[in-house]
């Protein structure tokens, strides 16, 4: 018999009221504004935009505030909001070669045209807590130099000239969209990249690290890492021409990996690719490593049984909203499910106890017989 129970409305309402109060914290402390979160916690905002798969810094900042800084909860809010928006269309693919770079480095070519531009990086900080930040104070203006006016060329373009790196196939095929069509395997690289771009940073970091430690063999160099803004162009259907509909900050990572060659093709470097909304370089590098590991089949490599090579494993576990939804649902009431399990265990125990009793009785009889 299934008995539906209702209850807890008042408890839920009161819990929400307390949540709101806790979110606000001590009212003697000034309340955070959306603009403060957007401007001063920009990397959290970027992560929420990337994994929420919706570029809108104010909305991501609002989600972080509402989620009390729980970024996966904030990503959940953005994903939920995203589904309410009508889709006006798709943009032209962004031209990352035209990026206005804040940062652009290469671990492979010291003297790359355009140079090594560090940008606002944590890289060479000493990772010592800066107690000056605990006090209010003016920030010194960052030094400036004559700005570069022309776009910074991609590093791989130089290798392409020599044909020493794999070419990306020219194509204008309409890519698959995992938000519209359920996943099926094997997935194309278009779907894999879309999935990785919105995948959980921590999960991809762990997988990428596993490839570096030898689970799937593909030693990667960061051929190029660039962060900056690109214009987003879209054809306006009513007008029949293309406009720049906005601009987004992106992080792009191109890795140069071990060569592949065959009887018909001379040895060439292979590549992995990461592209993520916002300044999100750890995620972009991880994405490029995992993208490369997942390409084993098309590059004629062996399946080494590594987690990062297993497309279904990677793609079905990288989405933190799916994962947290399933993980967290087990804390919600399962009273009826559990009741049936409880009864089953009790029954099994009764049977086991009865068996033991019977066996003991048998043993005693056998013992008596033996002693006689």
């Amino acid at each position, binding site marked *: 018999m299934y008995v539906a129970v209702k209850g807890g409305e008042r408890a839920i309402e009161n819990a929400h009221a307390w949540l709101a109060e806790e979110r606000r914290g001590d009212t003697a402390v000034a309340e955070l504004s959306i603009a403060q979160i957007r401007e001063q916690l920009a990397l959290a905002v970027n992560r929420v935009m990337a994994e929420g798969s919706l570029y809108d810094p104010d909305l991501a900042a609002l989600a972080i505030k509402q989620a009390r800084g729980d970024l996966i909860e904030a990503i959940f809010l953005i994903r939920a909001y*995203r589904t309410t928006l009508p889709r006006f269309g*798709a943009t032209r693919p962004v031209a990352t070669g035209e990026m206005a770079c804040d940062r652009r480095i290469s671990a492979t070519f010291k003297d790359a045209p355009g140079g090594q531009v560090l940008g606002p990086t944590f890289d060479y900080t000493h990772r010592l807590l800066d107690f000056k930040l605990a006090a209010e104070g003016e920030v010194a203006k960052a030094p400036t130099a004559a*700005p570069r006016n022309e776009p910074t060329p*991609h590093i791989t373009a130089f290798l392409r000239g020599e044909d020493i790196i794999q070419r*990306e196939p020219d194509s204008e095929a309409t890519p698959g969209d995992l938000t519209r069509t359920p996943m099926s395997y094997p997935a194309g690289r*278009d779907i894999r990249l879309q999935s990785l771009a919105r995948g959980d940073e921590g999960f991809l970091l762990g997988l990428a690290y596993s490839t570096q430690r030898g689970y799937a063999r593909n030693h990667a160099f960061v051929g190029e890492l660039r962060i900056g803004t690109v214009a987003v162009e*879209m054809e*306006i259907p009513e007008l029949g021409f293309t406009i*720049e*509909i906005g601009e987004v900050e992106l992080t792009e990572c191109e890795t140069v990996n071990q060569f592949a060659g065959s009887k018909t093709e001379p040895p060439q470097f292979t590549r992995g690719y990461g592209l993520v909304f916002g300044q999100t370089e750890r995620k972009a590098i991880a994405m490029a490593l995992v993208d490369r590991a997942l390409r084993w089949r098309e590059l004629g490599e062996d399946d080494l049984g590594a987690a990062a090579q297993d497309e279904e494993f990677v793609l079905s576990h990288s989405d933190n909203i799916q994962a947290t939804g399933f993980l967290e649902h087990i804390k919600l009431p399962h009273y009826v499910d559990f009741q049936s399990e409880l009864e089953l265990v009790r029954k099994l125990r009764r049977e086991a106890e009865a068996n033991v009793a019977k066996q003991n009785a048998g043993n005693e009889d056998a013992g008596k017989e033996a002693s006689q």
Partner: protein
Amino acid sequence: MAIQTENDVVTQARRDWMSLLAKAPEDRLLALWADYGAAPAFDWLRRPEIGAVMVRGRMGGTGAPFNLGEMTVTRCALTLADGTVGHGYVQGRGKPKAEVAALIDALMQTPEAGALRAAILDPLAGTMDAASTARAARAAATKVDFFTLVRGED
């Protein structure tokens, strides 16, 4: 052929101002519009509507397209009393921004274009250029100058 070229020029000019308006910071655009002080009568063809567009990237930066993620966009369309149609297609969720962009798009097709360009588009472009130049100048200051250490050999 000459007419075609003229159309292209007109289209290019319209693309440019619509692109500028789409990317403009909302506060600055609304402030400039308020200062301009126009309140033309218009009818909605499509009221401001918030939606998303799917932003695409290319594999390896140059290869086949893939879907990167969406961004918010607001659009609207209107007609002025003289029948000129204006479209607003702007980044973000700013309905006032979309409305002002559509009004400016319409007015830029009228004899008011020159005044509007001087009062709104040029200052807006100036603000945005200054912001991007300021970033580029900071980036340039973080460019590494390599130098070779003198070896300790005789």
